[in-house]
């Protein structure tokens, strides 16, 4: 039967009688999802990022480290040696807390940031520090509990808190990081409301997305405010060793072992594909995290844990981190110089001393989410600021990352962005006067 005949038969059936409509079910579980999954839907911004992955586009969006600069032959040798010598261990189940040997090495890494008293028993190895954050949230947050965070804050932390139905309350930052005065005001307001404030989530060093570092005196103030309010501080510190001024910044956890859970990661100092991060927590919290990890994944990957442990034991990893620092410093300089040159008056940005990110703020009336497709058309990508807030703020800001593209691409990308911003300001001026509604 030809297609025409088939369709004609279908139409003829309709002429004789009303054809019964059928519902096309694309997801028969649509009404069965948990409340916490309601926000997990397709998004336009994600679709635009799919274009940003094309080589024609300078992506200042993602926070990917360029792992191609790693000595891949050394990585290969380490992994090969691991399989040959301890393959039966590496390919077997391990514990939910993680390999003791790796946990000991992690303690040595944290000592570089001033944490002298870390014990391997209080370290939980996780699939990137993201999983540590997920486990902590699982252990502490009931629906409706409050997590206080910087505004802006790390986008995927927002998603984690939202998945556990936390209420996220932002506290503003200035050039010195989270404002203790604003934090005090927020905590007392929340206390007056009767809100259950459980966690303060902070990226105090080379913040994602702000590129800002919390000053030492403020660190003490923040910890003290949280201690008094009974709020646990979660110090997320993936960039701490990537300081451009030489000395690593002293971790908050170094001076407050009972008040702070520290999250660390090898994603930025070795390779994100390994998915090895960790939490350092007070003993009672550690015990809960281990049980939560057990129910989540049974055991961490022994293979990647031992690969990292062996790499740290046999390769000049500290030198590698130093090389990363130099590379990122050069890229940061390229971005700041290019911004000075390309941006019109009225645009401001942060000047990070380490890490991956610059936070750029455009004049009022500009919507950086609406600007994104124009930027993509001009072959440059960034992350709109609104994604780094849970409350819809950040509409005039963008996060720029300088970690991945080499300096000449950064300059090219920032130049393109400068033109896009000027064009956006012209568009804003066009629509600045709204029609009279009288």
């Amino acid at each position: 039967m030809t297609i025409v005949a088939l369709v004609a038969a279908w139409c003829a059936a309709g002429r004789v009688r009303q054809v019964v409509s059928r519902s096309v079910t694309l997801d028969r579980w649509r009404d069965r999802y948990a409340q916490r999954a309601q926000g997990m839907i397709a998004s336009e911004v994600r679709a635009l990022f799919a274009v940003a992955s094309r080589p024609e586009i300078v992506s200042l969006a993602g926070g990917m480290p360029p792992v191609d600069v790693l000595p891949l032959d050394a990585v290969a040798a380490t992994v090969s040696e691991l399989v040959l010598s301890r393959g039966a261990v590496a390919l077997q189940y391990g514990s939910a807390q993680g390999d003791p040997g790796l946990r000991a090495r992690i303690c040595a890494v944290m000592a570089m940031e001033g944490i002298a008293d870390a014990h391997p028993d209080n370290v939980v190895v996780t699939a990137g520090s993201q999983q540590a954050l997920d486990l902590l949230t699982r252990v502490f947050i009931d629906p409706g509990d409050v997590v206080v965070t910087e505004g802006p804050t790390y986008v995927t932390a927002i998603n984690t808190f939202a998945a556990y139905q936390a209420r996220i309350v932002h506290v503003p930052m200035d050039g010195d990081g989270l404002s203790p005065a604003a934090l005090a005001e927020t905590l007392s307001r929340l206390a007056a409301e009767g809100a259950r404030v459980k966690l303060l989530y902070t990226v105090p060093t080379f913040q994602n997305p702000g590129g800002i570092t919390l000053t030492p005196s403020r660190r003490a103030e923040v910890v003290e405010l949280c201690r008094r309010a009974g709020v646990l501080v979660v110090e997320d510190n993936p960039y701490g060793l990537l300081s451009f001024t030489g000395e690593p910044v002293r971790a908050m956890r170094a001076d407050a072992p009972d008040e702070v859970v520290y999250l660390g990661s090898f994603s930025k100092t070795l390779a994100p594909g390994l998915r090895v991060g960790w939490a350092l927590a007070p003993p009672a919290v550690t015990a809960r995290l281990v049980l939560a990890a057990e129910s989540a994944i049974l055991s961490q990957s022994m293979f990647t844990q031992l690969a990292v442990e062996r790499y740290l034991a046999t390769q000049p990893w500290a030198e590698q981190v130093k090389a990363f620092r130099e590379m990122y410093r050069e890229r940061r300089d390229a971005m700041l110089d290019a911004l000075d040159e390309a941006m019109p008056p009225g645009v401001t940005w942060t000047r990070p001393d380490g890490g991956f990110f610059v936070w750029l703020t455009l004049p009022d009336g500009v919507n950086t989410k609406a600007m994104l497709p124009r930027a993509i058309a001009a072959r440059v990508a960034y992350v709109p600021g609104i994604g780094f807030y849970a409350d819809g703020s950040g509409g005039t800001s963008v996060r720029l990352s300088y970690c991945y593209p080499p300096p000449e691409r950064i300059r090219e990308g920032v130049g393109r962005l400068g033109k896009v911003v000027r064009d956006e300001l012209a568009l804003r001026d066009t629509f600045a006067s709204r029609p009279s509604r009288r």
Partner: protein
Amino acid sequence: MTDLGRVLILAGGLSPEREVSLHSGGRLRDALTRIGIEADLADVDAATLPALAADPPDVVFPVLHGTSGEDGTIREVLDLYDLPYVGALPPACRMAFDKATAKAAIRAAGVATPAAVTLPREAFHDLGAAPLIERIVARLGLPVVVKPRAGGSAFGVTRVEEAGGLAEALMSCFGYHDSALIEQAIAGVEIAVGVLDTGEGPVALPAVEIEPTAGAYDYAARYTAGATSFFTPARLHNDVLRAAAQTALTAHRVLGLRDLSRTDMIVDEDGVAQFLEVNVAPGMTDTSTWPMGLRAAGLDFAVVCRDLAAYASDRPAPRG
């Protein structure tokens, strides 16, 4: 029908609909492969033309969405390489892709389409946005739908309920195109009618009714499985369904389209199917309405796409 050789599916590209297009292309490749057709999927980039020249396929099946995929560009290029392809010729694509031009042509053929105003960004800049917006609202009333003059997947589309929201909607729209189509929002049932021609003349597929679970049929509603309810055929009277089928066929004919198309309409409260737009490279993802129409007619997606490719490969080259 000759034996069908290698089919090259072009997808991806640099439009905002890249991801959608890659899904469409992947699904088409898998379908053709399943029934024994040699089918490759290629992302369109600087390597595409050398590959086409070095190893020309028997026929190209473009499923590129958005600008350059649907505005005739890629087909113009395929014509330069004398490669047969599935779908309309470049001049027809240009007409269909431009919503304002397509609406004018359809209206001239006696088909209803919502009243609209099309203005470029410069007009608001040069003449002043406030008086223009005031005049637009006076002419069209509210609510209106602001759309990029060309483009798909509801990128840059905003429904505006109050005059105060029009400026922001226009700014968002101008992110995707330098010209905006501001159209009266018609209350009614949203439907999509596919058209198919494998050599025996165009036929209309059963109308697919689109009912977003909450709010508008926006990007999230289109591409989150389950966020929209679909009904085939649309829950409308037979007379209305027949009229909608005629409208889709009229659009296909009037705009000079070929092989396949999809016309989006709103059936208003009087049962009149009003033309919104037509697509020359309809989406073929799991949540797309063109394949749903096929299924409703009892047709197999893979077989139909094979027949479309075979019909195109047998077709004499358009020039030279």
